[in-house]
């Protein structure tokens, strides 16, 4: 064992090794590059980048902010770059959609201080509503893309991205994916650039004012800059060509897929039998290297996750060079979901006849046999989560409406912890699309259907993209109920602050003040753990003609428990009185709280999980659920 001094992410210890999460490595890259401004909006799998940088901002003299949404984050970073500082924006793939407008013109403006966007894509849709491939967005915006194949490379590339951005005076994108952002690895640290620049705005109408008269010229200059970058990528160390004499098959592997490809080749003993081109810049492609590979083999396989982004370009290079060989890609490599070593090995096996390293058919058989035994374990709202109370209250109010008028309310949900309410037993989600959609889709539905429409979203989402659709509902007098589930944090992504719940003593912006100022006449704030009052407010909101806003406010239960522990306040769980409980299961069937356990017909509460919200006690028809730990009776 080596005696290591305690290294941290800010240690200026070139050559030392640290075990890091991919996103921490990206954060470290920003520190090494001397980035002075970071702006981001959280989103899995990108959040830990900015979590890390916010936590060391003071120490490193960096300005790091959680912006109100990704568009603003992008603009904050662009402003810093314009002022000569190195600046980075970080977001998940769908966040780039929100930033798309300024991003599309960022290339026209060029960069003064290095400007890098980190896009964290989510192949496999581990925690996203879609599986979009942001390399296409980059291409549309003339933004060169660096795509790391390992955690080490993620850090190194990010540092280099800033050098390149300043060399070519152009914005760059680092594209990560879940399996990289959430990978862990030993990382060799580099030196920290300690230069601190003073932000300075220099007027330059031709580059900075994107009105048609100026921006036509900007577009031409952008195209010229991009051509220079295209010429330079062949020399970047992230693109590597290994030609093997006599190899029939050439493999082109991009980003994270490179590791799977290397291992498939190693397991199959083909190291000397195939030629391999590693791609670190899928856009612009190192065309010279591609041509070299194409002209030395008789067949090519392109290995990349998601869309045939590199594959299509390789086909164009082949066509332009007049090289006629078969180019495989998405015909043998899956287009949907994450890759792993297996599909790559199977594709190579199919093309070369080499034996795959494992009998996959046998594995599939065992897996198939096992599948029926697996318990269904969906992620669920935490014990004590106030969203469970809000969603249950919405369900009760809608059931009462149905009893009276016969129509079923439509529940529009959004992306946040409350989206977990889609599962049994809450079933509180009929449609959910994107952030802000909880209000936008609800407002649209209200214009075209007779049934009452109840939309809901969280407080962070409200500030991110819920305000314009609320204004739209007022503007067009939509007959809609808009519920803000206010847990005073951005829960889903790990408790980032937002304008309604700032981290320090910044002024709090209250959603009810915003709603009233926007002209909503029905605005009520309730505590969701007061079930009777909450249901009453919701019933009145649903009956109200015109837009009605109900805010259910209660701190996220994880944060509340943390706060109580910090203050030394006791957490008092509930328990079931076995004399009164007849095992009817109403609590379980209505709420599905993970702290309520049923063995045979006996219902108990796991006191180690129960934070004592008391919601189950309010729904129990036998009044059998009581506050306090059981007095040793059980």
């Amino acid at each position, binding site marked *: *064992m*080596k005696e*290591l001094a305690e290294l941290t992410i800010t240690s200026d210890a070139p050559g030392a*090794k640290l*075990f890091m999460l*991919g996103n921490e490595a990206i954060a470290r890259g920003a520190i090494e590059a001397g980035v002075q401004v970071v702006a981001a909006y959280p989103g*899995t*799998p990108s959040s830990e980048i900015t979590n890390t940088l916010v936590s060391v901002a003071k120490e490193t003299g960096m300005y790091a902010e959680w912006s109100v949404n990704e568009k603003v984050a992008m603009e904050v970073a662009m402003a810093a770059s314009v002022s000569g500082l190195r600046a980075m924006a970080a977001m998940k793939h769908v966040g780039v959609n929100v930033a798309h407008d300024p991003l599309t013109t960022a290339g026209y403006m060029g960069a003064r201080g290095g400007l890098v966007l980190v896009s964290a894509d989510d192949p496999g849709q*581990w*925690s996203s509503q879609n599986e979009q491939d942001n390399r296409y967005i980059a291409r549309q915006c003339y933004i060169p893309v660096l795509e790391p194949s*390992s*955690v080490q490379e993620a850090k190194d590339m990010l540092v280099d991205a800033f050098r390149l951005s300043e060399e070519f005076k152009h914005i760059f994108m680092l594209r990560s994916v*879940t*399996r*990289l952002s*959430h*990978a*862990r*690895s*030993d990382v060799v640290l580099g030196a920290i650039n300690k230069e601190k620049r003073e932000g300075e705005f220099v007027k330059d109408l031709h580059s900075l004012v994107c009105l048609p008269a100026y921006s036509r010229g900007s577009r031409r200059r952008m195209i010229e800059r991009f051509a220079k970058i295209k010429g330079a990528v062949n020399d970047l160390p992230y693109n590597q060509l290994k030609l093997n004499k006599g190899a029939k098959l050439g493999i082109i592997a991009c980003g*994270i897929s490179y*590791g*799977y490809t290397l*291992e498939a080749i190693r*397991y199959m003993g083909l190291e000397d039998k195939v030629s391999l081109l590693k791609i670190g810049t899928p856009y612009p492609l190192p065309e010279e290297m591609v041509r070299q590979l194409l002209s030395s083999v008789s067949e090519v396989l392109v290995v990349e996750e998601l869309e045939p982004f590199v594959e299509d370009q390789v086909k164009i290079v082949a066509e332009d060079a007049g090289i006629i060989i078969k180019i495989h890609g998405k015909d043998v490599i899956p287009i949907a979901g994450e890759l*792993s*070593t297996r599909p790559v*090995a199977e594709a190579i096996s199919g093309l070369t006849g080499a034996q795959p*390293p*494992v*009998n*996959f058919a046998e*594995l*599939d058989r*065992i*897996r198939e*046999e*096992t599948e029926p*035994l*697996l*318990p*269904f*374990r*969906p*992620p*669920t*709202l*935490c014990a004590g989560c106030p969203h469970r109370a809000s969603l249950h209250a919405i369900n009760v109010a809608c059931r009462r409406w149905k009893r009276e008028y016969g129509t079923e309310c439509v529940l529009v949900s959004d992306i946040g*912890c409350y989206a*977990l309410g889609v599962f*049994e037993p809450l079933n509180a989600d009929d449609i959910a699309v994107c952030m802000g959609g909880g209000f936008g889709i609800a407002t649209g539905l209200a214009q075209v259907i007779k049934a009452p429409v109840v939309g809901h979203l969280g407080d962070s989402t409200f500030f991110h993209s819920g305000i314009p659709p609320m204004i739209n509902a007022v503007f067009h007098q939509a007959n809609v109920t808009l519920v803000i589930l206010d847990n005073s944090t951005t829960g889903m992504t790990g408790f980032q602050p937002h304008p309604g719940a700032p981290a320090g003593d910044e002024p709090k912006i209250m959603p009810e003040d915003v709603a009233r100022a926007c002209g909503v006449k029905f605005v009520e704030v309730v505590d969701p753990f007061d079930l009777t009052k909450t249901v009453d407010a919701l019933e009145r909101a649903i009956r109200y003609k015109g837009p009605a806003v109900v805010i259910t406010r209660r701190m996220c239960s994880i944060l509340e428990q943390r706060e109580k522990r910090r203050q030394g306040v006791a957490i008092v769980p509930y328990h079931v009185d076995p004399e009164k409980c007849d095992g009817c*299961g109403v609590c*379980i*069937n209505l709420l599905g*709280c*993970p702290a*309520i*356990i*049923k063995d045979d017909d006996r219902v108990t509460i796991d006191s*180690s999980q129960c934070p004592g919200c008391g919601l189950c006690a309010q729904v129990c028809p036998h009044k059998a659920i009581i506050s306090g730990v059981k007095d040793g009776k059980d």
Partner: protein
Amino acid sequence: MAKTKELNVIICGVGGQGVVLMSELLGNAAVRDDIEVKGSEVLGMAQRGGSVFSNIRLGSGVYAPLTPEGKCDVLVAVEPSEALRNVHFLAKSSLVVLNSRDVKPFTVFLGKSGYPSLEEILDKLHRVTDRVITLDATQLAQEAGSVQSANVVMLGTLYGTGLMPITVETAKAVLQGRFKGKVGEINIRAFDLGYEEVQKALKGAPVK
């Protein structure tokens, strides 16, 4: 840096069991012992009571952060049914260490899902490998001083297999670096109990 043989470790369990912490402790220990380490986990939606999967790959020549199917050397299941969810990573030579204490999801209480018996779980695992060690890590954690330390008991079992290229001293030093005072003592006890339990099961002989 010393060259070490590839060793693929998968740790699985459910949200809240401390699976991710186990892989952090493992990785930090590897770096201290100068052993190359890669890995990945599924965060995000998988937290909040869902299934959690983490894999740590040790040794020279490993590049990808994900263990290939059929290439897992040791599967550590902090929850028994979760071992089954990862059965496709196993091979005939794999070693499985299983905490027998189940965590039933609420869907079982809702009547929307079944839950396999320990016999069913072991039966399926035995179709792939007969090297399965079962223990009640939660009980041992209680003996150590806190049920919260069941994950550290399972970490101890991993070292007890004798397969780890990382030394036990390093593993404990990293553990002590992370947990100070009384919690640190409990965790060292938990580690030792897990270690001894597996050594007993293997009758003191490291698995080949």
